[in-house]
């Protein structure tokens, strides 16, 4: 394994650890498309 491959392997492992940690308590109801809803709900028209 060369230096570049080692970097890739390390980065992938680091990212997997991060997402496992920060996503551990996600609600079952949380969907990827919730992002767009969050933007729409937070816009001035709806919130002010």
């Amino acid at each position: 394994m060369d230096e570049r491959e080692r970097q890739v392997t390390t980065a992938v492992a680091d990212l997997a650890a991060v997402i496992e940690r920060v996503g551990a308590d996600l609600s079952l109801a949380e969907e990827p498309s919730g992002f767009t809803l969050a933007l729409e709900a937070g816009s001035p028209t709806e919130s002010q």
Partner: protein
Amino acid sequence: VTDDWTIASLAEAIAGGRISPLEITRECLDRTARLGPRLRAFITVDEERALATARTLTDELASGRRRGPLHGVPLAYKDLCRIAGLPTSCGTATANYFVTDIECTAVVRLRAAGAVTLGSLNMSELAVGPFGDNAHHGDVENPRSPGHCAGGSSSGSAAAVAAGLALGTLGTDTGGSIRLPAACCGVVGLKPTYGRVSRAGVMPLSWSLDHVGPLARTVGDVALLLEAIAGHDPHDATSSRRPPPRLAGIDDGARGMRVGVPENFFFEGLAPAVEGAVRGTVGMLERLGATVKWMRVPDPAPLVGAAQIISSCEGATIHGRLLRERPDELQPVVRTRLDVGLHVSAVDYLQAMRVRSRAARVFIREVFREVDLLVAPVIPEPALLWVEAKAGSPGEVARRMGRFSRLTRPLNALGLPALSLPCGTSPDHRPLAVQIVGRPFDEASVLRLARACERETAWTSARPSPA
């Protein structure tokens, strides 16, 4: 002919017959010919067609026709915007890397408003990288601070404005790529809300994080460009159906605006010059009548990891063929960053998307129930010397890139409008900048606060450099 035009003053002068589209286009092209070899801001200068368009626009004006608010204003676009008749390299070694039948919607709209297209602008390879280096087209020189990086990935877009080669430009921002070069080169750059400006006809790096936006010398000019390019586009599935923003109130001043300043994350590990300039801006906003509140914001750090997973997976998907078939063409750091995406699991990708959804909902709810806007630094340090930016192994460069863009990347994951505004210079004259962040689709308030700062200072009135 002066080189001190803004888009607003130039458009007015053209409409009033004090300068013609042909004269100003020639001036920009002459300047580009003179400074181009040193700055490397352009990849393709479309001189012949720019002059032909400018002649047509000059004739139209003589016969009483004005196409729109940008009639005769010379602009240029990052070389990942598909422009009819021009190659689109996306900063790669392949001249025609990005091929699509759809012309860039933002370019089409600017042309309809009367703009002259000067050509396509240099950028980081595949829009990956915050410094603006490019092994194929040359590293973009910082016009305001020679020897230092121009910032990336929209390096040519910022340098062209700072040097007066174009009155305004388009860039894209997946992790800070409009705001970082704007900050490094001392110009104004706006990443609009996700969905506000169509991405159609623009090479994607990450469908979920890419934003198209304007760069110009002043806040008013950025507002003019945003008005021209914003609005729903049926060619982009993520394009919002909201009407374009109403920007008539951007001169209303800062009085009464509630401005938050994050105590956590954004002020950690700053260079003293950066921290001093941002705190100085905050103090000025208080004097201008804004209500300033230092506050803890929901931790953006998890978003940085989530965004990295999203961008690497989507980037590897989009550019997988190049990565598999001609990997040696790619700069080592670019190759490594895309390669990571080939090895992240689908579960981790979807988890990252879910983390982003929750974080956006919580951040928007918690922050904007207390304030209207956030003010924070753009970059933890001023533009680096090229020799510093590129020193060390690819791994060291990648870590340096991560630090350089750590304050901009969370805003891409959140999709919020964020503007980079010059706010002074370091003791050695490198530009410094502040980031103004608003509610979703509230570019009007972002521009209003930025305009209030601009009117109080000379930060955005610097003439193009080098002269």
